[in-house]
């Protein structure tokens, strides 16, 4: 198809760039469009230069290189249906995502899956060769580990301000590189702006009356390192202990001795400040008190006492045109339906 892809519902739609497969904008019900990007980045954990301050259990100390993109593009598959429209994105063998917009919702769901985060040792691990573990599609990694974040970018003017919650109740206003109770001098520009996010993080553009809220499905670290951006940390795999107590790196081996694979969801709400505040609070309650589901398997023969589903042929019967005579004979196609065809039309020639 020419041009970008649009997916969503009558209230909110996502615009997918046809060249990169990444989200590039959001369209509102009134047709207005907002530039919007989402991609996955990673921080290389420091440790080479200041071994006493490794990123580890109690420290987030990325190198000064800043966040690096995992992949500049994604392979995508777009699926549309009566309940949900979704885009499946694959960024790398260890990073993929499904972006969903349900028919009657006003949020966008990002269902991400990260892991096993590759480390140098994997490439030499005999039982991991082949499949997604082969050398070709692995970017060699520093042997200190990696910390993966999901970054949402807009052109909102936020003046270094963002808001995070505290235990799903009150909201705290954060200013970049600033502390309200003392003068902040820091050499760690990234880490000193990271805060705990329990239920929501949001940014606002007061001139345009816009608010962007991100709700994680579990507590994560998050920040707004640049204006108009929000990032949340999804997963870490660290190979050096930070010497502050665990005496063990956070290199959690999953199955097959590979790193852990983590899957989770982010919910994005964007729009006028008043309505997004209300939706944010409502959705955060729904996520916190998440419905519980379980199953029962009744025996096949058991009658559950429900009436049969109306069969699909009351009023609509399809038959090959060549046998119009017997259609007329058994009452014709429309006899029991609303759009009944007159028998004369049938007997006169079904074409």
């Amino acid at each position, binding site marked *: 198809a020419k041009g970008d892809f649009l997916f969503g*519902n*009558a209230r909110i739609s996502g615009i997918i760039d046809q060249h990169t497969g990444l989200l590039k904008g959001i369209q509102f019900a009134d047709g207005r469009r907002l530039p919007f990007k989402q991609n996955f980045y990673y921080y290389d954990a420091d440790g080479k230069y200041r071994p006493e301050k490794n990123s580890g259990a109690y420290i987030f100390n990325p190198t000064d290189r800043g966040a690096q993109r995992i992949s500049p593009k994604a392979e995508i598959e777009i*699926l*549309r249906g009566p309940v949900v429209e979704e885009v499946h994105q694959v960024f790398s063998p260890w990073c993929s995502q499904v972006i969903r917009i349900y028919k009657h919702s006003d949020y966008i769901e990002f269902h991400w899956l990260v892991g096993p985060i590759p480390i140098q040792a994997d490439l030499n691990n005999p039982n991991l060769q082949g499949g997604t573990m082969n050398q070709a599609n692995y970017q060699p990694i520093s042997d200190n580990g990696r910390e993966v974040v999901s970054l949402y970018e807009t052109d909102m003017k936020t003046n270094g301000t963002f808001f995070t919650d505290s235990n799903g109740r009150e909201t705290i206003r954060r200013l970049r590189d600033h502390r309200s109770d003392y003068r902040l001098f820091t050499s760690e520009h990234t880490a000193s702006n990271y805060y705990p996010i329990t239920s929501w993080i949001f940014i606002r553009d007061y001139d345009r009356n816009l608010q962007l809220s991100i709700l994680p499905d579990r507590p994560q670290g998050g920040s707004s390192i640049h204006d108009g951006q929000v990032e949340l940390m999804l997963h870490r795999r660290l190979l050096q202990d930070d010497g502050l107590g665990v005496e063990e790196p956070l290199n959690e081996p999953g199955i097959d001795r590979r790193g852990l694979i983590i899957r989770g969801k982010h919910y994005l709400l964007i729009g006028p400040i008043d309505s997004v505040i209300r939706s944010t609070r409502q959705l955060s309650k729904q996520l916190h008190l998440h419905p519980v589901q*379980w*199953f*029962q398997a009744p025996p*096949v023969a*058991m009658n559950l006492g429900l009436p049969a589903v109306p069969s699909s042929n009351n009023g*609509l019967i399809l038959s090959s045109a060549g046998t119009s005579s017997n259609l007329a004979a058994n009452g014709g196609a429309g006899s029991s339906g609303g759009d009944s065809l007159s028998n004369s039309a049938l007997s006169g020639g079904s074409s």
Partner: protein
Amino acid sequence: NELEPLQETLGILQHHDAVTGTCKQFVNDDYSRMLAHAMKKAHHSLVTSVAKIIEHNNEQRGQQGQPMSPIDTFIMKGEHIFCSSLNASHCQISEKLDRFEKLLIHVYNPASHTVQHYVQIPVRDGRYMVRESTGPGLVVASQQTPIPPAVLRLTSIESRQDYGVIDPEVSKELIFAAILPPLTMATYIIEKTALSSSGNLMTSAASSLYSSQSMPNNNNLGGQFLPPRQPGGNQFHTNANNIQRRESIPVSGPQLTT
């Protein structure tokens, strides 16, 4: 004594190591073990409390002379199965659903207001129908979407753990919207109607019911139900003469037909 292990475990897991995962590997594994054991015991108390809700409802119905429905009878007597790997798109009982077999799925809403919750369960390839378990058993709009390959790899690891085989046929997820009243549960019946899934069995009766279903007013739901776009697969529609087609709201920009 069914909830106590969970209360004790969550008390232990308030420790900052457990909340942030900054603990030794074997301590982390022990936390997971304790939590899984405690959750299993707590499930039983959820089932018994649901039985009390049903009993109470049926007493009311009994006073009005209505007998207990076969479904409620089965809910009280049948075995309840919880799937703890649904976030890895893995659930043995739904993956094994075979033709003409039915599956009851109960969804309990702990919030004090009506909630619209999208249920996603892994299924084998095939055609499924979802119905409400109350009243005339209205058909609920449902859809199948493929499970991403990265998750299938995950699922295959899980299924290898569960029953030693990787089930190649489990490749879809069945999604439908459950409208959950506050502080109680809703039950839906999933039935496999055919082996091959040539598109979603989507009756327009269901689609219009889905849109006209009494959406809760405090959720900003509602809006127009757009007739599903033809995604290239063949959507099955029963005739719907008496159902007013809702004009679709044009969404500007190029529309994909597949």
